[in-house]
C-alpha cells in the first residue's frame, strides 16, 4: 500500500472513529519540558511545573490566554491608598473539585503553609513581600503572624511589608496557588496522589506515570466549567527534543514547549506557521567575576561585551529562537519603559572592535600581554556553540579563552558556592513581569544569585530607593538608572533574550503567543 493510500485510509477510519468519540472526549496531548518534581505547588519552582499546576489550581489572580493578569478565585480586589493592604473578595461559586466551598481561610492555610520552614518550599521567597513572610520562612517568627487574614469566608486581606507594585502578578505564580487543607491533613505528603488530589482549577489529576504522562480531567465543579472545551489534558515530558518534534509531526502531540534550535530552519520549512517563536522574559548572559584580577577592570569587561556578535549567535547558533540582547531587562516587561541599552549598540562591528582593543590597551593588555579568560559553561550543544562563538569574537581583540564545561548541577554549584571561576554562562527567567526581578540579581547582598560578585554602593542605593518608591513612573526611572550603571560596569554581559519556542498544531485553537509563555488549557479548543 502506498503511503498516500495508507494515510487516506487511516484518516478515513480516524474520522469515523472521531465523529463517534467526539461527543465523548476531547483530548489534548501537550508536550512539556519535563516531569514535575512534585505536584505540591508549594514545593515547585519551575515553569514546566507551573503549566500543569495552573491547569489544576486557581490562585487569587490568574493569567488569561494572552498572559495578562485577570481575576482568578478573587472576583475583585481593593488596594489601600498606601499600597500596603490588599482586600480580595472571592467568587461566591468558587469550589473545590470534591464540592467543598473554597473559603478565604483556605488561602490563609496555604500561604502559612508555604512560609512554614517545615514545608521546605523551594520558592517561598517569591512571596516575601507579604508581611512577616521572610521572618517566618527563616524560622524567626510564628506562622500566625503572617500578614494574611480571613475577614469572613469570602473576604481575604493581605498586608505587605512595603508597597509592591507587582504583587497581583506575584499571586499568579504557583507559590500563590491554594491547597486543600482537609486532604493534606488526611493524606499527608500523599495528598498529591491521583485519587487524593483535590483541586479548585479547571482540571483535576487523573494519573501520573513518571517519565511518561500526567493526565488531567475536566473539573465539573470549576466556576467556569461550561466554557472549558477540552475534556482531558495529557502532559508528556519532552526528553529528546528532536524525537518530540517528530512526534508532533506525526500528530501525537498538539503542542510542544520547545523545539531543537538547530533544526529551526528545517522545521519552519516543513511546518510553516506551526513553528512559533516569540520574545520571552529571560536573559542569557555571561557573568564576569569582578573579584578576579583579570576581570576587575570595567574597561576589560566592557571590551569583552562590546565585541560579541549577538546577531550572529542568535541566527547561526539558535536559528533565531533567541534574540540579541543589549540590555539586562528584556523589552516588553511590565512596570517599565524602554530598558537602558549599552552605548555600543549602534556602532559598527569594526568600530566596536577598535574601541574594544583600545579599552584593553588602556587596561594594560595588548599583544605582549594578552588577556586570558577562563569561560565556564554547562554542557548542552547550544551552550557550547554559543561560547565557542563568543571566544571567537574575543580572539579578534587578542583575548585567549579557555573552557571548562560540566553538567548543570556542577556548574551552578560552583557559581553559587565557590569563587573558582572567571567568566561563566548563566541564565535568568523572570518569575514575574517587573524589572526588579532582573535587576535584584546584581545587588551586592544577593549572595546566591549575584554570580559576578558585583558590588557597587551606588547601584544598591538606587535599588533601595526604587523599592520605596510608590509612583510607578518614578520607580521605572530609578530602576532604569540602576540598569544603566550596571551596563556601564558590565558585571553581566547580556548576550541573548530567551524566546518562547513552541510547535503549535493548526488544530489547536486559542493558543496566544505571549511573553510569559503561559498557555492555560481552559482557553483552548481542538478543531477536528
Amino acid at each position, binding site marked *: 500500500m502506498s*503511503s498516500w493510500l495508507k494515510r487516506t485510509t487511516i484518516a478515513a477510519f480516524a474520522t469515523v472513529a472521531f465523529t463517534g468519540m467526539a461527543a465523548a472526549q476531547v483530548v489534548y496531548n501537550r508536550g512539556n519540558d519535563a516531569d514535575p518534581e512534585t505536584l505540591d505547588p508549594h514545593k515547585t519552582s519551575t515553569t514546566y511545573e507551573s503549566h500543569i499546576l495552573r491547569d489544576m489550581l486557581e490562585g487569587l489572580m490568574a493569567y488569561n490566554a494572552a498572559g495578562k493578569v485577570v481575576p482568578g478565585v478573587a472576583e475583585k480586589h481593593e488596594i489601600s491608598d498606601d499600597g500596603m493592604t490588599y482586600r480580595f473578595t472571592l467568587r461566591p461559586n468558587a469550589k473545590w473539585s470534591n464540592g467543598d466551598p473554597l473559603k478565604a481561610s483556605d488561602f490563609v492555610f496555604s500561604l502559612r503553609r508555604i512560609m512554614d520552614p517545615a514545608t521546605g518550599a523551594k520558592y517561598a521567597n517569591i512571596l516575601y513581600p507579604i508581611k512577616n513572610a521572610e521572618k517566618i*520562612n527563616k524560622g524567626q517568627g510564628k506562622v500566625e503572624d503572617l500578614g494574611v487574614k480571613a475577614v469572613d469566608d469570602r473576604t481575604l486581606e493581605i498586608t505587605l511589608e512595603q508597597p509592591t507594585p507587582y504583587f497581583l502578578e506575584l499571586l499568579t505564580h504557583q507559590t500563590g496557588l491554594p491547597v486543600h487543607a482537609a486532604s493534606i491533613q488526611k493524606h499527608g505528603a500523599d495528598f498529591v496522589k491521583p485519587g487524593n488530589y483535590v483541586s479548585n482549577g479547571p482540571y483535576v489529576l487523573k494519573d501520573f506515570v513518571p517519565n*511518561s504522562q500526567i493526565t488531567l480531567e475536566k473539573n465539573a465543579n470549576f466556576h467556569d466549567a461550561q466554557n472549558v472545551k477540552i475534556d482531558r489534558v495529557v502532559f508528556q515530558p519532552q526528553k529528546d527534543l528532536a524525537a518530540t518534534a517528530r512526534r508532533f509531526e506525526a500528530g501525537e502531540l498538539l503542542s510542544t514547549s520547545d523545539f531543537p534550535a538547530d533544526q529551526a530552519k528545517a522545521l519552519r520549512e516543513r511546518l510553516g506557521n506551526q513553528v512559533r517563536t516569540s520574545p520571552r522574559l529571560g536573559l542569557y548572559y555571561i557573568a564576569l567575576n569582578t573579584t578576579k584580577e583579570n576581570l576587575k577592570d570595567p574597561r576589560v569587561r566592557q571590551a569583552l561585551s562590546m565585541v560579541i556578535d549577538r546577531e550572529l549567535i542568535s541566527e547561526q547558533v539558535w536559528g533565531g529562537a533567541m534574540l540579541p540582547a543589549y540590555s539586562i531587562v528584556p523589552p516588553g516587561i511590565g512596570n517599565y519603559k524602554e530598558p537602558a541599552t549599552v552605548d555600543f549598540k549602534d556602532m559598527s562591528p569594526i568600530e566596536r572592535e577598535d574601541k574594544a582593543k583600545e579599552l584593553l590597551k588602556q587596561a594594560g593588555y595588548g599583544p605582549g600581554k594578552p588577556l586570558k579568560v577562563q569561560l565556564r559553561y554547562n554542557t548542552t550543544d547550544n551552550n557550547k556553540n554559543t561560547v565557542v562563538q563568543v571566544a571567537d569574537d574575543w580572539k579578534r581583540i587578542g583575548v585567549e579563552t579557555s573552557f571548562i564545561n560540566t553538567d548543570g548541577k556542577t556548574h551552578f554549584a560552583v557559581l553559587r558556592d565557590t569563587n573558582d571561576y572567571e567568566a561563566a554562562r548563566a541564565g535568568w527567567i523572570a518569575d514575574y513581569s517587573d524589572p526588579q526581578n532582573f535587576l535584584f540579581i546584581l545587588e551586592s547582598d544577593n549572595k546566591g544569585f549575584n554570580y559576578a560578585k558585583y558590588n557597587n554602593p551606588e547601584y544598591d542605593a538606587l535599588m533601595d530607593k526604587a523599592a520605596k518608591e510608590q509612583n510607578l513612573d518614578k520607580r521605572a526611572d530609578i530602576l532604569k538608572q540602576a540598569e544603566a550603571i550596571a551596563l556601564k560596569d558590565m558585571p553581566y554581559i547580556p548576550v541573548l533574550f530567551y524566546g518562547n519556542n513552541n510547535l503549535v498544531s493548526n488544530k489547536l485553537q486559542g493558543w496566544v503567543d505571549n511573553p510569559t509563555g503561559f498557555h492555560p488549557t481552559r482557553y483552548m479548543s481542538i478543531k477536528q
Partner: protein
Amino acid sequence: MLSFILRRFLSAIPTLFLVVTISFFLIRIAPGGPFDLEQPLEATVMENLKRIYNLDKPLIEQYGIYLWHLAQGDFGPSFYLRDFTIGDLFARGLPVSITLGSLALLTAVLLGGTLGSIAALRQNSWIDYVVSSFGTMGLTIPNFVIAPVFQIVFGLMLALLPVGGWNDGSVRNIILPVIVLALPQLAVVARMIRASMIEALRSNHIRTLRSLGLPTSVVVLHALRGASLPIVSYLGPAAAALLTGSVVVETIFALPGVGRYFVEGALNRDYTLVMGTVVLVAVFVMFFNLLVDILYAIIDPRVRYE
C-alpha cells in the same frame, strides 16, 4: 547444586554491601546537590530542605540511615521526583523495561540463533555472507542513529506505527523500540552461533551422527547444544543490561522504563535514585550470572558444582 546456589546467594550479600558503600560515597563527591537549580535557592530554604531530607546530618550518619532502610527493603524517597519513592518508580518502570528487554532478548536469541545456524550450515554461501554483513552492520550502527531513522521511516513517511509513547504497552507502540533494542544483540548472537556451530559441526560426535545418516534436524539439535555454551555465558550479562532498560531507546521513544533513571539520577544528584539503580543492576547481574552457571551445568554434562 542446592548448596552451590545457597553459597552464591550468601556471597552476594558482601558484594552488594561493597557496591552500595562505594557508590554511596562516590556520588557525594560530585559537586552540587539534589536541590540546586539554574535559578539558585535562598540559603534558608536550602537549609530547610536539607533538614527535611537528612542531608544536614554528617555523611556517615546518612550512610547508616540509608543502610538501615535498605536492609528493610526501603530504597527511600526520591529527592528529585518528590511525589514518589524509589520503590514506586521501580514498581512502575521495571515492568516496562522488562517487557521491552525480554521481547528484545527473545527476538535476538530466536532470530539470531536461526540465522547463525543457517549461515553455519551453508558456510561461504551467499546466505552466510548476508548474515555476516548484517551482523557487522547491526553491531556498528548505534541505536541513537537507528531509532530516529525508524521513527522517520515507519512513523512519518509510511505512517504505519506511532513515533513514540507507551500507550499502556500497546503492541503497535512497542514494535519499533523492541527491534531497535534487539538489533545489536541479534547481530552478536548470530555471529557467535555461526562461529561455534561451525566448530561444533566439525566435532567428532556430530561427524558420528552424520555418518549414521540421521536427519539434519537431529544433527543440528545436537550441534546446537554444544554451540550454545558461549552464547549462554554472553547472554547472562546481556540480559541484565537489557532488562534494566536502555537510556537511549527510552528517551527517543518516550517510554516510561527505568533506563533513564540511571542518567537522570546522576545528573539530578538524586542520591537515593542513583543508589537504587546501582543496587538494581547489581542484583540483576548477580542473578543472571548465577542463572548462567546453573544453565551451564544443565547443558554441559562435564560441568559439576559441588
